[in-house]
């Protein structure tokens, strides 16, 4: 086994070489602290409870480096874009203005590259950037925080409702590239936004995306977030989303995993006010030897909030899935209504899933339920369809589609829902 200190030294060298000219004064200390913490923690191993089923040595073993750049990603941007949506595109970690269309947003809302925002809107970023994504115990958050230089910043001012979704597209194309996207979404009081954050890549490149997304949803704001991961089969994708919710806000997240060799998503929502509604849904499709690990945590700190979570997976070949869903209900969080479900369909003998709900409840007047099911295609249903003339392959496709359908049908962005319809239909 390779020494685990070598990769840490490798990334420390990258940290030492990074540019910090022009950054607001508060950022370099944060990045230094994050780097120190990463150097202490190192990459996680399977002895770490949070990484028990996900061996990231294949990532640690490759000395990834920032992309040299210059890739022509026009075709990829067209392939993975959604016609008609305003989009901001990054190629191998660099902002690609020629592929982006972000000029006109209503009501003073803006989506801009983070590098520019750090220089032009530092005061707007300071209360949020790095405030939600704690890195003390999370090596990949520490690594992202230490190294990020670019990403997307979306700001929706108070009371502004954005009618059209925004598409943030991160493309991974260059073999050996480490990509460190940092996304910050700030929805001020009473505002409304729909965001599609997607990650995509070309077929064969070995890339390492280590993404962190912070979402701040102020009082009475609505944010509908979709994450779509369609990286190449040899890509590594680690992503952490940290959501901070204030009173009476409504947040929903749909996390859809279709790509990468190893994909790990952490979604953490902190419900810090009363009457918040939080939905975390997910859909993962695995084939080949893909590993898909979804960790979610919903932290109910205040009374009268609801959280709803449905994660569904379809695993074929030798693919593996991991689901870990934590729900914390703090002492003050009376009248919490929390429901969590994880359902996985295994299409082959060799596919497997490890699923673990974790409920920690400290309040006494709450309603919390969880359930996990793992199963195969229902033989009775298959037979029924076949007796009606539907061939076995099509019968399987119909049942797989039906299984995924209740997640796909909840997608409120038509272009994304149609794309998913097609993908789920053709994979099955």
């Amino acid at each position: 086994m390779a020494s685990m200190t070598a990769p840490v030294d490798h990334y420390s060298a990258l940290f030492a070489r990074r540019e910090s000219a022009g950054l607001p004064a508060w950022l370099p200390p944060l990045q230094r602290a994050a780097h120190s913490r990463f150097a202490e923690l190192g990459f996680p191993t399977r002895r770490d409870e949070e990484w028990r089923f996900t061996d990231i040595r294949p990532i640690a073993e490759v000395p990834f480096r920032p992309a040299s750049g210059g890739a022509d990603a026009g075709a990829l941007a067209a392939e993975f874009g959604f016609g008609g949506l305003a989009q901001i595109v990054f190629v191998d970690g660099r902002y690609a203005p020629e592929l982006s269309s972000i000029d006109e947003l209503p009501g003073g809302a803006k989506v801009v590259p983070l590098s520019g925002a750090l220089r032009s809107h530092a005061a707007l970023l300071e209360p949020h950037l790095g405030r939600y994504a704690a890195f003390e115990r999370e090596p990949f958050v520490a690594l992202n925080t230490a190294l990020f230089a670019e990403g997307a910043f979306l700001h929706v001012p108070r009371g502004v409702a954005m009618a059209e979704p925004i598409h943030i597209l991160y493309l991974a194309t260059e073999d050996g590239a480490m990509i460190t996207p940092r996304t910050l979404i700030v929805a001020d009081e009473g505002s409304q936004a729909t965001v599609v954050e997607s990650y995509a890549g070309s077929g064969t490149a070995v890339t390492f995306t280590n993404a962190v997304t912070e979402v701040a949803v102020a009082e009475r704001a609505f944010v509908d977030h979709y994450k779509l991961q369609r990286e190449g089969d040899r890509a590594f994708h680690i992503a952490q989303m940290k959501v901070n919710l204030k009173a009476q806000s409504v947040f929903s997240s749909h996390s859809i995993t279709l790509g990468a060799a190893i994909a790990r998503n952490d979604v953490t929502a902190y419900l810090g006010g009363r009457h918040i509604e939080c939905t975390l849904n997910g859909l993962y499709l695995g084939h080949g030897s893909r590993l898909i690990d979804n960790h979610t945590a919903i932290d109910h700190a205040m009374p009268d909030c609801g959280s709803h979570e449905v994660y569904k997976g379809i695993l074929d070949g030798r693919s593996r899935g991991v689901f870990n869903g934590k729900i914390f209900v703090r002492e003050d969080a009376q009248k919490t209504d929390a429901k969590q479900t994880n359902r996985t369909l295994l299409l082959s003998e060799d596919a497997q899933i490890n699923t673990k709900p974790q409920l920690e409840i400290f309040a006494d007047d709450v309603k919390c339920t969880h359930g996990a099911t793992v199963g195969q295609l229902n033989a009775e249903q298959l037979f029924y369809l076949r007796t009606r003339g539907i061939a076995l392959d099509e019968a399987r496709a119909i049942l797989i589609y039906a299984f995924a359908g209740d997640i796909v049908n909840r997608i409120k962005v038509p272009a994304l829902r149609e794309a998913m319809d097609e993908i789920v239909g053709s994979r099955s």
Partner: protein
Amino acid sequence: MALLEIRGLTAEADGKKILKGVDLTVNAGEVHAIMGVNGSGKSTLANVLAGREAYKVTGGEVLYKGQDLLEMEPEERAGEGLFLAFQYPVEIPGVNNTYFLKAALNAIRKYQGQEPLDAVQFMALVKEKLKILHIDPSLLQRPVNEGFSGGEKKRNEIFQLAVLDPQLAILDETDSGLDIDAIKSVSEGVNALRSPDRAVVVVTHYQRILRYIVPDFVHVLLDGRIVLSGGKELAQKVDTEGFEWLEAQARQPALAGN
């Protein structure tokens, strides 16, 4: 040529012998009733004909339109015009009834070398059949059988039968769990399909449904064999006298044989 010819059919499930030599000939235009108590093998017979894998055919043969039925996949049997109305119709959450029915009809049409129906043609057909069967159109928008009452499920089977227009319909205890009104409307649906080209096999425990779907032939299945065949009056006799006298009668040749 008979539409369906079963000769010496034996089958087992989980190593248990259930069919012990069934002979039956069904011609186009005929309605046959197969009566029997629970465990006599009547549902097994229906399911073996539809191609359910849980049953293992151990002997005999089944010719359907002169072809070896047992060699065909379930979907091929459907393509050739065989339809089984399930005793327990299967719920398929997430699959819309209309979508399902259109997929089924067009799969069968494709098998038969016909062009698929487009949405407009399909809906016209569906509306016509709904009217004949007195079925609530809202049923079309619901997932297949999910949350349907027992009666709705059975009606949905007959509705599928009407839309898919098979040559040989096998009704597996379609009457079980239905009240008399539901039996009447299901029977009307079946009777509307009776024609010189088609045949119906009604598998049932009770004579009730046979008052409405009047059979040409009645067969009594007992312990995996057809022990008695007759006309429609046999159903009446079974109804009034029960199956016991037949069981007693059937035991005698078995004793003699030992």
